[in-house]
């Protein structure tokens, strides 16, 4: 049974490697087999080279003595396809980067390899990480392992689905407005958006640079902490990269006592726009937290109501600037026309999909002469207001609690006709990106057979507290390792 091995967490694999009961090659082969079985239906991966994965696995077996103590020795890690990988295609889910093969690795890929990890393949995403369902991928959507008629969330939907379907124990995603946490919630796994700057963005194809953060998706909190040990480091090639002033040691945080911690429950996330069943599910989880000795009280953060409109000014503004580099000259396909401006316009017109074009148009407009102050500067002021309000909240609370999403996974096509409806999928997650704070999504049960996610928000560099609380909650609640329907289907 390939799943028996591929379903092991990174933490369990480390034990097996240490005892010598498994080799990296055996694990790689099991993960490849599971991917071969399930990915024709799930479509989590855009690119995978089994021969290269096995070859790297053999090399890792040969380096066992040197790397065995590294946090991710021999652990297969899938990478969202907006993370640059030297010699491997990186399409960002876009036709405009079809055939593009980077000549350098992203900082996080270097971090993974330095720590013995096995890069496993590139996962599907909404084009340039713009979306909440993977329906904006130029290469077709990924399907949710819990119900293949439903979306896995996005934009890191391929990464979340690959972890949920036990193809890999860990995947990296990127989160600009919820793109790690929302798909993690919809597929029943764990996803962490770190403090802005904690993880290098060097080699991450930029969507909105002041909001983008790479982060881990896994099935256990221990695996999230292990990944941070490998990829959270100061990288001078990213001018916004920071060193964790608390010195890392994320694994140690898992044993921290949670009794006596104070948590706030912002009323804004439990009212209009949130499905009552989701509200009930998260409030049930809150009862478990209270039983663990955490003091929870209701609070109000009124400025968070402005997160979504502020985001849909700032993110498209940054996107319109960042995506200017895709002009057909340096990367990807190029329109064959004699005029350079026409070459840019034709290449971009045919290479970008509808959502990307929408956001480029929106961003170009809000930055254009006569509108910059009213839109961009106003949104920057509101962003500061949101940051200030959250900072003040963290003077009183160790962490905040909300649902990760307003509802469970929706059906394909349900929200594609109206972009605003799709944008509302991220209403619970965007505030953390605007404030640059960490937020962790963990499973908190099932609603009509589909996973629900609870989100824990922390102050800057509060990852340890969130990991400790998540570990205690998951151990107490039994929501660890939820198994999606596709793993139970006899037909597979």
């Amino acid at each position, binding site marked *: 049974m390939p799943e028996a091995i591929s379903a092991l967490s990174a933490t369990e694999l480390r034990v097996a490697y240490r005892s010598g009961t498994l080799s990296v090659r055996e694990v790689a082969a099991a993960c490849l087999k599971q991917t071969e079985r399930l990915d024709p239906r799930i479509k989590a991966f855009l690119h995978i080279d089994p021969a290269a994965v096995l070859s790297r696995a053999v090399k890792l077996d040969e380096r066992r003595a040197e790397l065995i103590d590294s946090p991710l020795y021999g652990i297969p890690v899938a990478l969202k396809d907006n993370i640059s990988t030297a010699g491997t295609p990186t399409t960002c889910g876009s036709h405009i980067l079809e055939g*593009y093969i*980077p*000549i*350098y690795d992203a900082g996080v890929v270097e971090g993974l390899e330095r720590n013995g990890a096995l890069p496993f393949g590139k996962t599907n995403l909404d084009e340039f990480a713009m979306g909440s369902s993977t329906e904006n991928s130029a290469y077709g959507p990924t399907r949710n392992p819990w119900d293949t008629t439903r979306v896995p969330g996005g934009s890191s939907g391929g990464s979340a689905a690959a972890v949920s379907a036990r193809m890999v124990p860990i995947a990296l995603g990127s989160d600009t407005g919820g793109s790690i946490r929302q798909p993690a919630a919809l597929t029943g796994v764990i996803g962490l958006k770190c403090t*802005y700057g904690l993880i290098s963005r060097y080699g991450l194809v930029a969507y909105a640079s*002041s909001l983008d953060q790479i982060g881990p998706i896994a099935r256990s909190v221990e695996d999230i902490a292990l990944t941070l040990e490998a990829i959270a480091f100061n990288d*001078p090639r990213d*001018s*916004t990269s920071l060193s964790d002033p608390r010195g890392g040691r994320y694994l140690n945080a898992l044993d921290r006592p949670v009794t006596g911690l104070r948590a706030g429950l912002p009323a804004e996330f439990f009212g209009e726009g949130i499905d009552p069943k989701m509200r009930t599910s998260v409030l049930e989880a809150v009862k478990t937290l209270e039983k663990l000795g955490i003091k929870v009280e209701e609070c109000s953060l009124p*400025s968070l109501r*402005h997160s*979504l*409109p*502020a985001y*849909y000014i700032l993110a498209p503004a940054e996107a319109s600037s960042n995506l*200017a580099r895709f*002009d*057909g*000259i*340096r*990367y990807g396909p*190029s329109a064959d*026309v*004699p*005029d*350079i*401006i*026409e*070459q*840019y*316009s*034709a290449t*971009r*017109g*045919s290479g*970008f999909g*509808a959502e990307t*074009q*929408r956001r480029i*148009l*929106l961003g*170009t*407009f809000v930055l*254009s002469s006569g509108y910059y102050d009213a*839109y961009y*500067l*106003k*949104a*920057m*002021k*509101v*962003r*500061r*207001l949101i*940051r*200030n309000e959250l900072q003040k909240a963290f003077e009183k609370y160790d962490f905040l609690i909300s649902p990760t999403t307003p509802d469970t996974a929706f059906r394909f096509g349900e929200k594609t006709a109206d*972009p*605003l409806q799709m944008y509302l999928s991220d209403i619970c997650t965007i505030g953390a990106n*605007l404030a*640059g704070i960490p937020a962790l999504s963990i499973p908190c049960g099932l609603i009509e057979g589909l996973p629900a996610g609870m989100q824990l928000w922390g102050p800057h560099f509060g990852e340890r507290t969130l990991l400790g609380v998540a570990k205690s909650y998951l151990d107490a609640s039994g929501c660890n390792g939820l198994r999606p329907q596709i793993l139970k289907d006899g037909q597979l």
Partner: protein
Amino acid sequence: MFDIQKIAKLARLNLKPETESELSTQVKNILGYVEALQAVDTSTVEGYGLSDASPHFRPDEPVERGDPELRVRISARTQGDLFFVPKVIGEGDA
């Protein structure tokens, strides 16, 4: 006001004629939604965005970042070890 043809030209985007009208309506709807921010009182908010910290600067020194030939090779159209671009200067510009 949002004029899709003007903005598409600024954004260097050739839009498909059959999608232009729908795109324009969608962008206008989004602009209508974000308009709500105008009502937010930010008169007492000091500073902008995430941080007032000064940006980090790297020393202005050349750094080796891989083989330049490889950089050119990933382009769709090259001439020797150069990027190939259509003529930029027109007849009357010389």
